[in-house]
């Protein structure tokens, strides 16, 4: 493994993945913003589509 310098061992019980939670929260916010954006671009910007 060599290049993976571990400076401290973190076991199962001491590990709390809060950074992961933060990243996933950011992803969901981006998704939400994109959906709202899509509503403006695609639905308000175009005529009604009748299939």
């Amino acid at each position: 493994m060599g290049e993976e310098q571990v400076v401290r061992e973190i076991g199962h019980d001491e590990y709390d993945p809060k950074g992961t939670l933060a990243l996933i929260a950011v992803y969901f916010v981006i998704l939400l913003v994109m959906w709202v954006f899509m509503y403006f671009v695609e639905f308000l910007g175009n005529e009604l589509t009748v299939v």
Partner: protein
Amino acid sequence: MSEALETGTPSFMDRFPQEASVVRASLISSFISLFLGAVFGLIQALHRTDVFRFLDSQYYYTVLTAHGVLLVVSFTIFFLVGLFTWATVRSLDRPLVDIRYTWAWYGLMVIGTLMAVVAILGGFFPSTDISADVLFTFYAPMQAHPLFYGGLAIFIIGTWLAGADYFRAWYAWKQDNPDERIPLQAFMVLTTMLMWYIATIGVAIAVVVFLLPWSLGLLDSVNPLLTRTLFWFWGHPVVYFWLMPAYLLWYTVLPSISGGRLFSDPLARVVFVLFLLLSTPVGIHHQYVDPGIAEGFKMIAMTNTMFLLLPSLLTAFTVVASMEHGARQRGGTGLFGWLRALPWRNPAFTGMALAGLMFAAGGFSGMVNAGMNINYLIHNTIWVPGHFHLTVGTAVALTFMAATYWLWPQITNKPIFSRPIALAQVVLWFVGMALMSNAMHVMGLFGVPRRTAEPQYQGFDFVASFGSITELRMQLALGGTLLFISTVLFVSNIALSTGTPRMSGLGKQLSEPLSPAADSPKVLDNLTLWFGIAMVLVVLAYILPLASIITDSGIVDPGVEAVPMLIDAATGLGPIGAVSDAAGRLVAAVVGVVP
């Protein structure tokens, strides 16, 4: 864990030399396909943007078929069998039962590929009647030469036998270890292969019962809606067949490369079981605009598809949490600061991490594709290739390339020729794909079609709400060119690695999960049970749609005539003629004779 830090760990090649040869052969077949596919990709990117057209547009479909088949069938699946062979042998820690059998399935896959590729490339030579310009979806009534369907069938039989090889190895292992949990990598291989057995029922029937006999003249006609539905029965789960080897790498290799441990082994097993259960009963979501399938069935497919988001979101969580664990063990701190502690100089890490990031973006466009109503906005536009170049074209392809930098030394006992080039290569892929895929998505929203050699129309212009179509075209062409350069860097780096000096001690060990398999209920390892439930779900999802297609338009539809994809030899220039013609025009343009 810490024993692994000492040098001199025996490599896979030291421990299983015969299996290592098969893995190497499979990867090399995969990379040859990748390189050829990228050549065709570059031609398309330059052609359809009108940056450089040296082939006559009627050959566009030969190019596009070759691109699709070489990349999503040969490149991905050869890599998969190589990786799965490695993963099975490594995790069960025993050789395969009979290496001659292993070479036999590899040989079948090679023969099948060569047959299909000959049929496709025949399209460049209008004087022969060999052609298969039917694209990788081979929808009837477009008809290919029998070599194409025959090659496909032989290739798939090869993959079935490969799966049986893994099951045999597992069975032998089980005799010696009756009470142990299936090692995680073997579990992933076996569940993926079970999914593949179910999925390929569809394509096997489409090809062997209908399309092959039809191309041989034994059957007068086929029912296009039926063969198309059977195609998509396979066509959605095949995307997970591409993705599962990437997931295997993200779950079992990426944590170690990040300096950490997999967050949870049981969660990984749950994800693979969910994919086995849910991958197949969703194929109809590719047919939202197909007439002849009731809206209700499409709704069911949409609902199943939304459930399928669950295992991918679970994966995002588990994989990122494992990376974070590595970063914190390496001394990273803070809510986001740990990201800096990740080993960004390691091409294997950076490639896989960037691949995962692009997959997250692909997740968004995938949700758009999956919604029955918003799908209409982007259906058959170039948005769709924009989407899957993020998923299979990057999440999968870039992960495979990045993982190769890690795996190759262990199956050859030779280090990678250049790590800096490797790092530049993965970053270049990311940049190139960001440009190409962004341009494709945006152009798709403006209605630019996919699968079109010359998407320009007389008396009609696509209107861009922002930017301009010309700008987007240039972006697509530039992105495609960077991707091509990245592929060349990858392939040549690996080729040059065959010349680096042989070393010992290149073996790498994988860290143990934080939460081990023993924490999970044993029923997770009951493959028969999951296979049974998956079959029931497939029957439920498909029995009614198939029955209604057959009652509406028959097993075969005599009204449908075959359309062989032949270019008229008299009008077709032939690629050589077209090339010299284009060269002539180029020279003339440079000289300034032609405006």
